[in-house]
């Protein structure tokens, strides 16, 4: 089940250190979000990190074959988890997103992204396609993605659901579906968008309307976006400096420790800091991607590429929300937003990436 313990030494240390730097930035940011205090967020986020660390290294030395073999089992476990969430879940802020396991409030939907990607990677690997893939052979992964999307969307957690669906589609696209299908489906979605609008919950419609024009409700639902833009804009080129962000320290910024954590960062460190952060995440994304070019096994390629993309993708979606170019749908900023499930799932993803980056394809792998 596990590789030799000393295989840990073959880690891609650059990737690991960039990861640590990002987590450290997140810690600093949570510290400043609390007005210069480890309490309540920075300290508990650090404790979680330390608790998750053995698991992190455990996954790094896991045999890739083990992951390959149990892909379907993971998927079923997650599926049951999502059903359980809906049935017995813990409700907060109008949504049922969490279940309690061993003292943790676990957001199963976060882990469903990983299970889905692993499952689909295995599916396309086994497909062993010569060239591009037809629609028929993509139906099963598409269906699984859609089921997960629906299960999460009715919690309701539209943000996570959209990410799940998008990641599913990215896997299918990456695995080589004929280009005609994505183009066709985008056209259909565009044409059906008025119908989809009516399917949204009123609060979701509201969020989109207010995204388009925050001034509709400056003290109500537009407040988030307006205050977030004020925080970021007032940061300027160089930022107000560490702990000098008045928007965040004075509570003008709602949900500052979770979805709007980037605004706190940007208020303190300005345009320069923000661009550096984007570059840092971009490098974190690219390191595994370069590795994929050297790989020939489809399972390895999909796992590395899509998992790495997942972190970068969520990062981009989150900042787009915060700067007001996408509606606020509730997507966490990886390693920076406060929250256990997000941290754990992203650590698992990074552990998997580190695991698959040190892979030696000369061995006979998935027999």
């Amino acid at each position, binding site marked *: 089940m596990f590789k030799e313990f000393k295989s840990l030494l073959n880690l891609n240390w650059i990737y690991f250190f960039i990861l640590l730097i990002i987590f450290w930035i997140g810690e600093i940011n949570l510290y400043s979000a609390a007005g210069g205090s480890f309490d309540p967020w920075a300290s508990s986020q650090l404790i979680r990190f330390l608790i998750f660390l053995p698991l992190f290294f455990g996954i790094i030395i896991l045999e890739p074959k083990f992951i390959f073999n149990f892909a379907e089992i993971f998927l079923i476990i997650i599926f049951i988890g999502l059903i359980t969430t809906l049935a017995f879940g813990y409700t907060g802020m109008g949504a049922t997103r969490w279940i309690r396991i061993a003292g943790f409030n676990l957001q199963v939907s976060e882990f469903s992204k990983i299970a889905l990607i692993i499952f689909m990677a295995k599916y396309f690997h086994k497909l062993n396609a010569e060239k591009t893939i037809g629609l028929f052979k993509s139906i099963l992964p598409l269906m699984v993605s859609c089921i997960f999307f629906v299960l999460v969307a009715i919690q309701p957690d539209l943000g996570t659901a959209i990410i799940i669906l998008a990641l599913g589609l990215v896997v299918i*696209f990456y695995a080589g579906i004929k280009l005609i299908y994505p183009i066709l489906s985008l056209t259909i979605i565009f044409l059906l968008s008025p119908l989809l609008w009516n399917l949204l919950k009123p609060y979701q419609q509201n969020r989109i309307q207010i995204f388009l024009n925050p001034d509709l409700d400056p003290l109500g639902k537009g407040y988030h976006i307006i205050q977030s833009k004020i925080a*970021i*804009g*007032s940061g300027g080129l160089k930022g107000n400096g560490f702990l000098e962000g008045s928007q965040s320290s004075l509570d003008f910024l709602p949900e500052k420790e979770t979805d709007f954590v980037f605004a706190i960062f940007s208020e303190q460190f300005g345009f320069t800091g923000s661009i550096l952060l984007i570059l840092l995440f971009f490098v974190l994304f690219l390191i595994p*991607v370069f590795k994929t070019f050297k790989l020939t096994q489809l399972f390895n390629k999909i796992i590395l*590429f899509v998992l790495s993309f997942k972190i970068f993708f969520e990062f981009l979606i989150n900042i787009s929300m915060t700067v007001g170019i996408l509606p606020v749908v509730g997507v966490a900023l990886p390693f920076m937003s406060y929250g256990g499930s997000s941290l754990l799932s992203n650590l698992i993803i990074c552990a998997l990436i580190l695991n698959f980056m040190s892979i030696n394809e000369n061995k006979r792998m998935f027999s």
Partner: protein
Amino acid sequence: MEKNKISEDSIKILNRRSFIIISIGVLLSFIISVRLFSLQVINFNFYKKKSVENKVSIKLTPPIRGNIYDSKNNLLAGSSSLYEFVVFKYLNKDYFREIKNLDLLIKLDLNFDKIKNRLKNYNDYIGFSVKRAKWEQIVKFEKNKFKFNSIKIIESKKRYYPYKNFSHVIGYMGQPTQSYEHYPKGVFHLEKSYENHLKGTPGKVFSEVNAKGKIIRETSIEKSIKGNDLYLTLDLNLQNYSQSLLPPDKKGSVIVLSVIDGSILSMNSNPTFDAQIFEDRENNKINEFLKDEKKPLLNRAFSGFYPPGSVFKPIPALLGLQRNLINTQTEVFCKGHSSLGDRNYYCWKKDGHGKVNLKRAIKESCDVFFYELAKKINIDDIAILSTKLGLNKEYDIGLSNLGKGLIPDKKWKKAFLEQSWYQGETLITSIGQGYNLTSPLQLATLYSAILNGGKYPIPKLDKKLPTKFIGKKFNSEHQKILINALNSVVQEPRGTAYKLSITNPEFVKIGGKTGTSQVIRIKESEREDDLYKSKEVEERFKDHSVFVGYAPYDKPKYIASVVIENGGSGSAVAAPIAHKILNFAYKNNV
């Protein structure tokens, strides 16, 4: 295992697809970067301003209003402490129930709807003043303090007026009416006109607030600056003395003016009011004053306009001298009336004065002398000279209800009555009756003009104002003739006010002129009217008693102008009051 090894083609496809996905990621990053650049670099100033507006709250601290003093630094208006019930919403969610309980405990007669409305959008952390607290209410509240979490007693300042005799001059304060006004402001008389001088500058407490308006810390404080003090020309003792001399049951006024620099030393009006009731918000008393038919709020020395009566006579006399129509030798025979056309114009002395020259005409106030003179005079010339000598003018000394009265001329009559001027009206005007309307202040300036030889100081209430002269010098010979005649009114036997010299020989020697101004010209038909017969109307139509005097008569320093409405003859009522006041001013060297 071999079958799981994918073909070269398939790998190429995957790698190509990865470039597409990376490109999308790069594109999105680029869009975000552009957006960040727009927010943080291009629109930085806009968001920075918004951010500062968000966090900074400016709380004003009221400045202390400037005091008002008399010429000898006696306090006439100051500030004193007062206590208010103030509610802070953040201290208790149930603040409104506490206000109701407070009203139950201490009868405050609160308007709950109004308070609820005002409080609805009021800042949680800024106190809202519910009502002023009286001493016994404070005691009662303190005993029950534990029941009220959101209500506190807070000290603030109110205006304090120690002497009610100054209310006509100082005025009073009112509530702010404009949104940019934060504190009570002067709304009447000097409090109003000197508002900017007195009000001072509010202090500012800049604090950082959080999204709920709670103060996190005070960042800087600008101290409030006390308003400037105002020093008046009035004299506390003279003002109080003059007021005490006014008959309490009559409407009347006194003004004492300095001949030297135009300082108003005393300005009284009866009935008076107490400005303090406006400060103490005693609404019942305020309403009483507003409704009172005697108009206690009117400053009669400044905005009471009456026919001047005989005190006007120096003007036609001077005009006659200047035009060589008369000289000191010119004599007129007064047989009790003078005729013009088919109408007779009567002298106040039915039997006539006999042979009268200018001096006697003024001394004994012979009307016929002036009728005869007026027959040769153009009314427009009288109007012009009156204006030169201080009548028909607005004196902006800082009081409300500015007015200039009326000195008629042909143009005015054409414009307002659409009639031509009759020479008979010139006769009436020349003895101070007819359309003439002058205020006691204007009469004082008329005599100041005569005593100063034409160039006289503008009256003032503000001691710090420099003395300014207006008018043109006239022939000093003419001035001597006039003053000699005016002195004889009091100093020589048969003068209309000679009685003053006999009753109080120890008083300062004064000169002056009596006047008895007819309130209304009653037509023959009206005399038969039932209304006129009633006593009340008779009182209302009684002549005004007017006297303008100056002291000492040989080297004038003070002018006193006294009008007692419906008081009767000038010599009997107004003159003795003026004499006492002039004597007081002179003896106390006001």
